[in-house]
């Protein structure tokens, strides 16, 4: 996957939608505590998913 400038097509609206379609969670988002509650850093909710399919 690379950063693109054209129209983006997202395969799913939510992680839940992807799971319903057969994807599995292989990494949950890191819980970022301890933290300074005034600061902002990376964007959260970073699930990593995998889907295994038989390829002919």
């Amino acid at each position, binding site marked *: 996957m690379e*950063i*693109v400038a054209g129209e983006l097509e997202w395969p799913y609206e939510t992680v839940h939608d992807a799971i319903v379609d057969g994807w599995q969670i292989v990494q949950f988002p890191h819980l970022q505590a301890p933290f300074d509650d*005034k600061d902002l850093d*990376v964007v*959260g909710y970073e699930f990593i998913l995998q889907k295994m399919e038989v390829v002919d």
Partner: protein
Amino acid sequence: MEHLLNDADVVKFIVTGYHITEPDLPAGLNETIAAKLDTLESNPGDAITETVPELWQVLENARVKGALTSLLGTGYEVQSHRHWHCKQTHSGHMNWHQDSTNNRDLRLNRFLGLYYPTDITPDMGPTVIVPGTQYRNAPTDRMATYTNIKGQVPLTVKAGTVAFTHYDLWHGTAANSSDKKRHMIKFLFRRTQENDSPNWDHDPECMNRPRDWNLKDQAEDPANILAFSNPLQVSQSDHYKERKIRRRVWDYLNGNTEAIPA
């Protein structure tokens, strides 16, 4: 002074981290600059303005100066560092990053101006920015697994556009799959004196009007934009933090230097 930003413009910059200006440049200037850049065989680094002195006409444009004065004050400085970013034909994308190291500063004292001498189409490797990320201090390694981010904006712009971008805004570059070189000149601007009052076209009552809870961030009202905008669609607690930071930056620009201690 002509072409100063208004309150909504300034608030949008605080919220999104960018402002697009389309200066009314002299006929032929963009073409002259692009033609010179097309033939350059090596990158002159900071000396790009000596190699292509016509670039100064962009910086002297009244709309450019109006935006810079509005955000950085009358004594703003064009720093000596500038760079020609030539995205070669058929070259790959560049990952998300923030410039410099992870020592960030909430005081709005410096930012970039990205000048594009030609039209930039999606296949020419435009700069891609993520509005609202400028207050998120993120080491590049932590961003390495991100690809496309909901809310990202490719700077597919008209020839002559100057995009002012917050120094800490997350940005990357799409691939250039075209047969044209994509030129961008990056300039760095810096405040030289802190504000004791707003330097833009300011209405002192602009933050005192009742918020529009129906239109929310769609209302072209500075108080609404500052409170409701959520370009990254972050969750509630992050949005609260972001709003507090925005308000401190607004207060700082209004002359309350205590809002963000040095």
